[in-house]
């Protein structure tokens, strides 16, 4: 085995280990609470290669909006779907898309991209 073959094998091995650790290992993301004003609350989710934050927390009983800020230009994240609410919004039509979330009961609403590859949730506490 030549030096360059050996080098290639080591690099490939290192990359495989890195991919496994980076993508499949545990990396918890912090949930974010919505900003409160007296009569309403709003949370902003940036859409770029995923949802950040992917979990937002809302307070029960205060009218709430989740705003999706679109920074991604690929088809992958073009739609956001709230299955439980029957909402399927096209995010590419405007820079910020507002989704109203009912907060009358404690509940978790899951959302995902149109193909179900990216997930996030809105928790009403």
């Amino acid at each position, binding site marked *: *085995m030549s030096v*360059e*073959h050996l080098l*290639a*094998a080591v690099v*490939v091995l290192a*990359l*495989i280990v890195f*991919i*496994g650790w*980076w*993508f*499949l*290992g545990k*990396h918890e*993301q912090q949930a974010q609470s919505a900003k409160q004003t007296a009569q309403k609350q709003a949370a902003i989710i940036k859409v*770029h*290669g*995923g949802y*950040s934050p*992917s979990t937002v927390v809302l307070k029960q009983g205060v009218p709430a909006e989740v705003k999706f800020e679109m*920074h*991604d*230009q*690929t*088809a*992958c*994240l*073009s739609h956001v*779907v*709230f*299955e439980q609410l*029957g*909402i*399927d919004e096209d995010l590419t039509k405007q820079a910020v898309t507002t989704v109203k979330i009912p907060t009358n009961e404690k509940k978790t609403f899951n959302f*995902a991209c*149109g*193909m*179900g*590859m*990216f*997930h996030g949730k809105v928790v009403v506490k």
Partner: protein
Amino acid sequence: MKKLTMGQRFWLTLIFSLPLIWQMLTMPFGWHYSGQEWVALASTTIIMLISARPYWSSAWAAFKLHKANMNTLVAVSTTVTYFYSLFAVLTGIAEYFESAALVTLFVLLGDYLSERMSNRANDAVKKLLSLQAAMAEVWRDGKYQNLPIEQVRQGDRVRVPAGAKVPVDGKILTGETEIDESLVTGESVPVAKQPGDQVIGATMNTTGLIEVEVTQTGQDTTLAQIGEMMRKAQTSHAPIESLVDRIAGIFVPAVLILALLTFAIWFVLLGASFTQAMLFGVSVIVIACPCALGLATPTALMVGMGRSARSGVLIKNGEVLEKAVELQQIAFDKTGTLTKGQPELTDLIGERKTVLAVAAAVEQKVTHPLAQAVITAAQKEKIAIPAAEHSQVLAGKGTAAEIDGQLYSVGNRRLLPTAAVNSTWTQQAEELAAEGKTVSYVLQGKKIIGLLAFKDLPKKNAKRALADLRRQDLRVAMITGDSHRAAASIASQLGIKQVIADVLPAKKVAAVKTLQQHGSTAFVGDGINDAPALAQADVGIAMGSGTDIAISSSDIVLTSSDLLGVPKAIALARKIFRRIKLNLFWAFIYNLIGIPIAAGLFAKVGLMLSPELAALAMAFSSVSVVTSALLLNYSKLRL
């Protein structure tokens, strides 16, 4: 820089790809012009800047979130080939710019086409809601005024001339007409309407002028509710999809690892050149893009639900589809579902005028079909109906009320005090029941004063609907609160072998449970008393004339009361689910076959995929999955 749309980016990329395509096509003939690698470098660089960059940026953002997706695959494959080619052109070895450019082109093509098609699939709901009339002639300040539909309130009086759309849901006050309700019910024959009848917003008034009292507006109209139900159904997941979701999370990293292994095996173990090994690795990444997988379910769901709604079948969510496939039995509520639900009074034993007057008075406020038949008969014979007080429903038995301080009751055999059983009355009732009639007893206090016998006829399409269901390999059963004999008469007319009769409303659930021991069971019903059974059944089907509660506890709602909707609904649900499975199968197969070919497993026999061919195959797979979903609109139903 102004943001380009997907379409604009695709066309620009195509234009800049032309020199590269030319080079690819002429290479086999050995045509080569000097400096062609510099042309390739220039046009590919432009393509990378215009079209590949959004994928890079999205993939990088995803990477920082520890996520990998299809954009990651596109980004890795294009960066590897582009920067390798850049290095190659500077050091004077063979470049592969066309791979980077064409992968981008075909990925964009796939995105562009599937976006356009899913927009089309999504149109169904919008189209439905756009059918609502925009204006209405409303009675305000002593005259009819043309007002926007938003200003119409509950209780308003609106006028609908012949040839106009009914603007909102309401009840006819004056006028007779025929209304084309095909939009909501799928039935093409216009329905005759007279004062007191319900009309539905957005249906077409064909022949006469009517005045309508508005009962529902805005979000509460039938049309708006159908739209809402469809939206929920279309965004719902089929259970099979959660498997896809689980796979998706580890799919991309696994593909990246696989590509690295492909490279290492070719380069280190099999002694291929660095370039060849790299191309194998990149092909693996490109062919593996799971777009087709992601599109397979949502597009089929969307198109299928849209088609169902247009033919009067509202399927509430994706889960129902899978259950419909597993169904083995279907049970029908008898009265009002299998039969017309408007039985007629055929026999009366006792003092005719008194018995009819008393029975009509007691049942005046009852909506039960037998009660309606009594009232209809009394009205026909012009009998004055006395006033009744303190009327109460005795669940599963009948109704009781006071007339002039005396307690009267009307109901079935369970109403009788033990002493009254086996009298001549009950013998006569037996004889009537033997003819398949339903018998009601009329009691004054605890004494029987009369017998009423009714007969209900099957709905016109009942026989055909049941035959269609049997052809779909379903066993048909009937559940009813009526006596065995009344039920048996209908059952023999319709050829139903399994009859569960004498079922109290509260026991319908138990009857469904019993059936479920022999296999997955659907229940078809319409009344309030059917709601628990509809919820208990694996698939609950509410008929269009049904009450709100029946509709909310069911899985499938038929907007018409035509029984042929039932076999149609099940056939449609099964069809959509099979199409989802077919779509997923094709999407998986593409990857399953494509990955080994791309990895060079069959290189010995000359079967190989260059990165650009892999990209074309990948784009084609997305498009074929979406096409297959759209074909659901046109495929024939096997009934």
